């Protein structure tokens, strides 16, 4: 299966509690499937870029309402021979998504003053999203608390 990577660079997260709606653009990283696509996240990376000690709690969560008219960013294929992905990444939208009030898929904390987080799934242990529609079709990586500048990257495999 083809693997794709989408990055969100140098953004200042806003602390979003579960249920937070209409997220401001450039405060999160979103990954969205289409009705015809299914993806599974195989890796995510968070790199802290704050200029002073700032602890962020970051979470990968599902969305109860998808972003309206997201500005799609085409994920890069890690293999140049792969077809273009059907799924997209985004960091901005006309109306931002709403975070679901459900179990988080992953929670990590880091000091964004140079801190780094990397999670890699073992085969068969990936995080799934499918079919486009909320709350199954999109995922969001953002902050629960802390507003230190970060860059984030999500790698996913499209099925």
């Amino acid at each position, binding site marked *: 299966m083809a693997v794709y990577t989408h990055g969100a660079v140098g953004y200042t997260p806003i602390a979003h509690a579960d249920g937070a709606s209409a997220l401001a653009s450039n405060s999160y990283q979103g990954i969205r499937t289409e009705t015809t696509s299914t993806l599974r996240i195989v890796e995510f990376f968070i790199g802290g870029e704050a200029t002073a000690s700032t602890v962020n709690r970051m979470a990968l969560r599902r969305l109860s309402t998808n972003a309206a008219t997201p500005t799609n960013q085409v994920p890069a294929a890690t293999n140049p021979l792969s077809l273009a992905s059907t799924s997209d990444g985004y960091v901005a939208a006309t109306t931002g998504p709403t975070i679901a009030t459900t179990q988080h898929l992953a929670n990590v904390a880091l000091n964004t003053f140079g*801190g780094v987080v990397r999670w890699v799934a*073992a*085969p068969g242990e990936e995080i*799934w999203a499918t079919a486009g529609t909320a*709350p199954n079709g999109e995922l969001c990586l953002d902050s629960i608390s802390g507003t230190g500048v970060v860059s984030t990257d999500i790698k996913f495999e499209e099925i």
Partner: protein
Amino acid sequence: MSRVRGGRGYLMIDNRASGGELLEFKTLTCAHCNQVVALNPKRQRERGFCQKCYAYICDSVGCNVDCNPILEGVDLAQKYATLGEPFLPRGYKGEVLFDLELRDKNRLR
């Protein structure tokens, strides 16, 4: 070679640049709720395991009372995409949030 589905993921949290430490964990992903769990190497209790899907499950109550694999949720989400049912998300206790009649109907086919 183990017949148990999945292996061990890897989580690295490196705070050395800010005077912290480097933390490395093995991780598992719950076969029911899809949550990533960093493994505590000092844990004494047995970890959850589903005999039906033959895979690791987390400690959430909802994941331990019934077998609702995330892969079945993916299947249902594709099949009933227009319903907007929460086939993949789970509640805070790991409980299923979608209509189980849809699952049962799908299993009987």
